[in-house]
């Protein structure tokens, strides 16, 4: 199955997902949607790690572990970010980046 797919095709798809995430991060104003874009970027990076590991260095699983660690860090980051959003919403009733001009209290 894997012999039919050249490595560059997978890299092209992951590049396009990455820059879709960048586009979303630049255009969105709502913080949750910005976080969704960041998740897209992280997933593109994961695809790259796994594909390069599988095609070029398939004997030591390095990309595999890096992808695992990236998933773990993404989970931690999402948890902290959403805690911050909920606290912000409780204080100023909005989570748009334009209206959040002060995070200090």
């Amino acid at each position: 199955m894997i012999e039919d797919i050249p490595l560059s095709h997978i890299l092209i798809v992951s590049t396009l997902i990455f820059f879709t995430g960048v586009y979303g991060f630049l255009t969105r104003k709502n913080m949750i949607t910005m976080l969704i874009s960041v998740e897209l970027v992280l997933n593109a990076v994961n695809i790259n790690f796994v594909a390069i590991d599988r095609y070029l260095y398939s004997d030591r699983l390095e990309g595999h572990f890096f992808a695992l660690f990236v998933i773990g860090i993404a989970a931690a980051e999402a948890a902290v970010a959403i805690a911050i959003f909920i606290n912000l919403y409780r204080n100023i009733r909005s989570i748009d980046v334009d209206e959040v001009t002060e995070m200090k209290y």
Partner: protein
Amino acid sequence: MGSALVLIFAIMSVTSRKLLRAAIFLLFVLIGVAIFFLVLDYMFLAAVQVVVYMGGILVLFIFSILLTSHLSEKLQVVKPVEIIIAALVSLIGASVVLSVITNHRFNPVVADSPEITVAEIGTQLLSYGKYGYVLPFEVISILLLAAMVAAIVIAKREKKPES
């Protein structure tokens, strides 16, 4: 075919004007990425992707969307200038990376690698030797603990001062 579908869902998830729909499109993108991992023979990673992203992060997203906005509410329309600038930046970046990828000649050594068992992954994750990953494992466990405590502390409602 499949990857085009993933791309379409990715684009829809960053352009959809309803928050909940954006989250659901993100769900489809994550499923697509898990399918990529399956195609590349990494079963364990696909399982982790499904469990952590769809079971954890996405549920967290949907909860926070429901907590912070009304369902019928639509996001404001983005200014066309911003769309053009952002699209330009991402198109330039994408074209640079794509030109590098298509011109570089990879030498794939697709070994018919033996099936990766979970036991293998576990021993390599906790081994001290070459290609062992015990130090990052410990570091990430401390990071997760810190993130957990931090999330609880930040989201905790502050006590009203008695007046």
